[in-house]
């Protein structure tokens, strides 16, 4: 295949992904594609009960089955002496932190909670054996609804958490906010359920663990977004192996959307099982298992209010939320409905008073944690729904009321009432572009004419902001993170001038091998083809924190840019020595160092690299070789923003919502590869549309998961979606070297509100002011009748 592009102009161009040839030919190896000599298979018996005491486990029949190597329960893990824990990595004040063990010891707390492990010679036998383990359960009542779970008398998930409250958190100024409401001319008020979602990365989670009892080393191939975090937690909390004896490798990873951030029991179980049987052990989730174990997303019950003065200016916002944590506190779960949620309540608006109160609530359900957007879609949904409701109650057009309340472009940096300092933005610019592209004024005429014919069209705006690229480590640490949020990079120029880049990020579909090489090609002036990017192996690259929260470009990309700059600095010193010139007299263009004005006498980066490695003639005090490592700790979050617009038509006879158009104008700062950025926006929109119209994890009153397969849970199909219209404004991030923000989550954050606002707009003749997601045909039909 032909080369793509050379040199400095690569940054910003839509070059095809270098990842793709292996993927389109089926050659790429995902975790479950790997085979190791002597490999055996592990399966996990899961509780059928949302809440039960375990009186006993009889595994004798399973153990006797031909091909079964061993069956283990929690007692065996305890007896092995490993820590066995599944910890939470974000601590809030006064938070209840119940023990979470690798298998349920004496109580199961959700359908799917692990009870026993089978290790067998083949996967069919490993599944057969599950049917032969008999657990004596004593079923108890369970509770799945986060608000009902806090009521007196609700079944307790953990005895140490009265009313199932894990934490009670607030942000903003309650007194000031209440005072604003006391003076309000209009108040918009909504009760909103943010529906529980199942991530559904197409690749189910899997692990292949290979423990070498001679060396004491564990190699763990797994579906991870962050190998180093998993290595750390495996070492500290689950397995007790020294960190340097664990190597976590992310082979090809088939999507994550947050679900492969978290430290689950299952991968630790595969590793522990390998330690017991002395053979490589593979565990691969069935799709049903992913529904029962992958951390779910969202699941909030909220009351929100927005106060306005007589001119429709926002004067106060208050929000009360019950946020499900599920049965245990997952890795970053406490951060999601707090610091990733309450801090976004100012939206794009100049809001002088905000108060947000959140109960984190235990329920007898799969744990809830970060899923694409993580807290920010929930916040954006509330703010943008309340803004539309404010427009309705005040009689102001939804576009106009937004315009009237935006933070103005000259107000940056803008300090919100909920901790964040927005660095840059031009919200009206994106809105104007979107309104023009969608034909907002004409649409209103079309809508009126359609209503005459009994057709119901609606348009919905979502003018969103998000905070991503977390962010100064000291700040997140002060908020409770038990992790840093910097990122690492190594840029290694080889003696021949070829380059290998190591990043602590860990892509799983984002195209880092392409975009990160684009960054380095531009920074070093080296041909793009001469640069390789390697990620996802804790044994190879320095510690990094992985890929999630739209952080890879802003933190990982910046780390790479910073390391590349160090390489150029060192190369310049050597080049000056070779050219017998002063460093400050040198220019560096297209990969060549030369004395300004004398480009004919140049030392190219490969020339310099060769000399750096030969080390025969280096300036005094300069070490041999040419590489640099950077640990980049961002100065602030980054703040992508934009306007999304949905146009829907509702079938009057069935209530079915047809998404006719979807337009996104995003501002993600400078763009490294427009094609990839557009692709991220498309996928993000599809997931947000999925939440708004189709997807929902349903538990019954007994906390049984009813939507337990893909037959029940509606991942959007191609014909549910229109082609998307995308455009951009560019407001570079002022505080990172690339001027980039993040794009991975923007579509998912913005789109639910755009779609529901459009539906509510379409239904305005029926006096409808809100419909909870997913907006099913039946809900719409009921609203119309």
């Amino acid at each position, binding site marked *: 295949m032909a080369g793509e592009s050379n040199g400095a102009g690569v940054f910003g161009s839509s070059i095809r992904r270098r990842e793709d040839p292996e993927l389109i030919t089926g050659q790429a190896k995902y975790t479950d594609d790997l085979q190791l000599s002597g490999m055996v298979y592990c399966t996990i018996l899961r509780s059928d009960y949302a809440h039960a005491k375990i009186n006993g486990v009889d595994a004798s029949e399973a153990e006797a089955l031909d091909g079964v190597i061993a069956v283990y329960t929690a007692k065996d893990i305890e007896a092995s002496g490993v820590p066995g824990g599944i910890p939470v990595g974000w601590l809030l004040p006064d938070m209840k932190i119940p023990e979470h063990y690798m298998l349920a010891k004496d109580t199961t707390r959700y359908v799917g909670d692990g009870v026993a492990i089978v290790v067998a010679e083949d*996967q*069919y036998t490993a*599944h*057969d054996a599950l*049917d032969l383990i008999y657990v004596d359960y004593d079923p108890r009542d369970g509770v799945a609804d986060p608000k009902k779970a806090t009521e007196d008398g609700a079944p307790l998930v953990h005895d140490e958490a009265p009313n199932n409250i894990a934490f009670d958190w607030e942000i903003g100024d309650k007194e000031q906010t209440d005072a604003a409401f006391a003076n309000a001319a209009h108040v918009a008020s909504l009760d909103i359920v943010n529906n529980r979602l199942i991530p559904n990365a197409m690749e189910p989670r899997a692990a292949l663990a290979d423990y070498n009892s001679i060396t004491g080393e564990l190699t763990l191939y797994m579906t991870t977004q962050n190998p180093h975090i998993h290595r750390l937690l495996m070492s500290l909390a689950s397995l007790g192996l020294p960190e340097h004896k664990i190597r976590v490798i992310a082979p090809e990873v088939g999507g994550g959307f947050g679900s492969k951030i978290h430290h689950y029991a299952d991968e630790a179980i595969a590793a522990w099982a390998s330690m017991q049987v002395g053979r490589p052990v593979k565990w691969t989730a*069935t799709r*049903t298992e992913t529904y029962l174990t992958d951390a779910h997303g969202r699941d909030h019950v909220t009351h929100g209010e927005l106060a306005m003065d007589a001119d429709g200016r926002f004067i106060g916002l208050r929000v009360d939320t019950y946020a499900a944590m599920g049965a245990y506190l997952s890795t970053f779960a406490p951060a999601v409905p707090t610091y990733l949620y309450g801090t976004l309540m100012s939206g794009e608006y100049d809001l002088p008073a905000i108060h947000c109160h959140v109960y984190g609530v235990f329920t007898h359900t799969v744990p809830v944690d970060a899923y694409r957007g993580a807290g920010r879609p929930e916040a954006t949904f509330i703010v943008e729904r309340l803004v539309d409701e404010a427009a309705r109650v005040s009689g102001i057009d939804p576009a106009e009321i937004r315009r009237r309340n935006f933070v103005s472009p000259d107000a940056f940096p803008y300090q919100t009432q909920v901790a964040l300092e927005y660095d840059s933005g031009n919200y009206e610019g994106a809105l104007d572009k979107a309104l023009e592209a969608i034909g907002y004024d004409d649409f209103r005429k079309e809508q009126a004419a359609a209503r005459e014919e009994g057709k119901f069209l609606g348009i919905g705006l979502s003018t969103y902001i998000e905070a991503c690229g977390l962010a100064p480590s000291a700040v997140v640490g002060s908020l409770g993170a038990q992790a840093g949020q910097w990122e690492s990079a190594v840029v290694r120029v080889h003696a021949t001038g070829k380059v290998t880049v190591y990043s602590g990020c860990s892509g799983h579909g984002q195209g880092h091998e392409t975009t990160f090489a684009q960054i380095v090609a531009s920074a070093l002036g080296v041909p793009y083809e001469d640069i390789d990017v390697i990620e996802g192996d804790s044994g190879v690259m320095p510690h990094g924190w992985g890929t999630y929260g739209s952080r890879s470009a802003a933190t990982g990309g910046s780390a790479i840019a910073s390391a590349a700059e160090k390489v150029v600095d060192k190369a310049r010193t050597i080049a000056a020595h070779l050219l017998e010139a002063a460093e400050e007299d040198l220019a560096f263009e297209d990969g060549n160092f030369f004395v300004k004005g004398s480009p004919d006498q140049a030392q190219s980066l490969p020339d310099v690299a060769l000399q750096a490695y030969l080390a025969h003639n280096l300036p005094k005090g300069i070490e041999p070789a040419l590489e640099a490592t950077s640990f980049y700790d961002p100065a602030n979050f980054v703040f992508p923003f934009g306007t999304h617009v949905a146009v829907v038509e509702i079938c009057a*006879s*069935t209530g*079915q919502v047809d998404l006719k158009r979807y337009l996104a104008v995003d501002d993600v700062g400078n763009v490294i590869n427009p094609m990839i950025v557009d692709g991220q926006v498309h996928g993000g929109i599809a997931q947000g549309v999925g939440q708004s119209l*189709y997807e929902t994890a*349903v538990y019954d009153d007994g906390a049984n998961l*009813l*939507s337990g*397969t*893909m*037959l*029940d*849970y*509606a*991942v*959007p*199909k191609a014909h*549910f979606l229109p082609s998307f219209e995308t455009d951009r404004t560019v407001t570079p991030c002022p505080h990172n070297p690339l001027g980039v923000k993040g794009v991975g989550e923007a579509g998912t954050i913005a789109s639910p509100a755009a779609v529901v606002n459009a539906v509510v707009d379409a239904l305005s003749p029926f006096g409808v002011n809100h419909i909870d997601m997913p907006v*099913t*045909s*039946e809900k719409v*039909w*009921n609203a119309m009748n």
Partner: protein
Amino acid sequence: MYPSKFDYHRPSSVQEAVQILADNPDAKVLAGGHSLIPVMKLRLAAPAALVDIGRIDALQSISRSNGSLRIGACVTYNEIANSADVQAAAPLLAEAAGQIGDRQVRYRGTIGGNLSHADPASDLPAAALALGATLHVAGSGGSRSVSASDFFVDLMMTALQADEILTEVEITAAGAGTGSAYVKFEHPASGYALCGAAAVVTRDAGGSCTGASLCFNGVSATAVSAADAASSLVGSDLSDGAIDSAVSGMSIPDATGDMFASAGYRQELARTLGAQALRTARDRA
């Protein structure tokens, strides 16, 4: 997921197949497998043996003779949807078959497997009912015929005995002045029918309705016929008004509700889709 163990038989004739069934009470018939294998993978079914009838030649063909269309049990949805014979003689069946599942499923799933599985949310049962299909059945005790209206007994239960195989579906070819339509409202995840309406109407030269049937999938435990609504159309001019009035009072007995759609909403869909199917059928008559 992983099915439990079973014995596998691949008979080459119907006689051989029914004998194996008679000898193995826990055996199940495997045709395309697109209803059975999924439930076996989830271990909701664990038959001791499978009798694979997929290679029995006698079950593979579509034929037309003497005003009758005969479709072998192992004919796939895709073949039915694209068969010129089916499109001419029983276009309703072709239309319904073309809406089952997805392209991949339609290449493998069979009419015999579909009707024998009797999933009320699948698309063929209502079509078979509306067309008054005759289902030919072979068992160790001999062959018999069952009308579609007697075939669907309850949720995923048919009139088939354990040792019987559905071998052929026979449909009287549509005559002049007949039109039909299948209209479906699909579940967004499974693609099954929340409600599927199958309508057949016949008009005389003057445009007056001489016969009508209207049947539904997805609304209750079996495919059902809305016989009263359909018969009320006979003698009418099949105007929009006549159709609306026929379906407006219609109520499907024992409509079921679940997490996807309430019984009441399914009734509403039945009225809406029923009217839509009748109008389209009329326009095609």
